[in-house]
């Protein structure tokens, strides 16, 4: 069966520090991968998605970047965090068909202080 791992679960970082969140998927190959962000009590905002190794599409211009160095690995990064980067970050995967259902990781709660 397929599983998705996302870590860390919580992270407290000072403003200006770098960020690296990692997500890996097991039990499937060539998935679509996604990073979403959720502000407290709000809906999900799509940040990045990837249809293959090295292929990243950015939805919102911001202080973050994403990379997909391996088929089932998706990394969210920042060189210098801002206060506004605080939020709940969710990784998800789907099969290759368009608009199919998403399988989410357990999320990372990021607090930038």
């Amino acid at each position, binding site marked *: 069966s397929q599983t998705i791992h996302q870590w860390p679960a919580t992270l407290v970082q000072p403003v200006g520090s770098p960020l690296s969140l990692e997500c890996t998927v097991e039990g499937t190959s060539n998935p679509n991968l996604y990073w*979403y962000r959720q502000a407290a009590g709000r*809906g*999900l905002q799509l940040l990045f998605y990837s249809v293959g190794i090295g292929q990243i*599409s950015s*939805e919102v211009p911001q202080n973050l970047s994403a990379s997909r160095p391996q088929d089932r690995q998706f990394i969210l990064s920042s060189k210098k965090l801002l206060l506004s980067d605080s939020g709940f970050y969710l990784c998800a995967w789907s099969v290759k068909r*368009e608009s199919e*259902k*998403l399988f989410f990781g*357990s*999320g990372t709660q990021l607090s930038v202080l």
Partner: protein
Amino acid sequence: SQQGEEDPQALSIQEGENATMNCSYKTSINNLQWYRQNSGRGLVHLILIRSNEREKHSGRLRVTLDTSKKSSSLLITASRAADTASYFCARGVTGRRALTFGSGTRLQVQP
């Protein structure tokens, strides 16, 4: 904006009652999905309804879709305290790989 609205934003009911949540959207869709999120956790897929379907059932869940009104509803029958969570609708749009999520309905089921 492609984002729609969920209504109500919050809902509090007693155990055993039915809970109805609504989702409206603006653009044409090829499917609409409902997800559940327990506090501080990832989202879990509940049900997907395609644009050519009008109603779908899964256990205690019933989803309807009215493409002429660009709206969907999620009905949870005989609610339980364990149904307490936030519920989100997500739209699948032709030509767009990622889903667009609404702002969610926070459901509280009182035991």
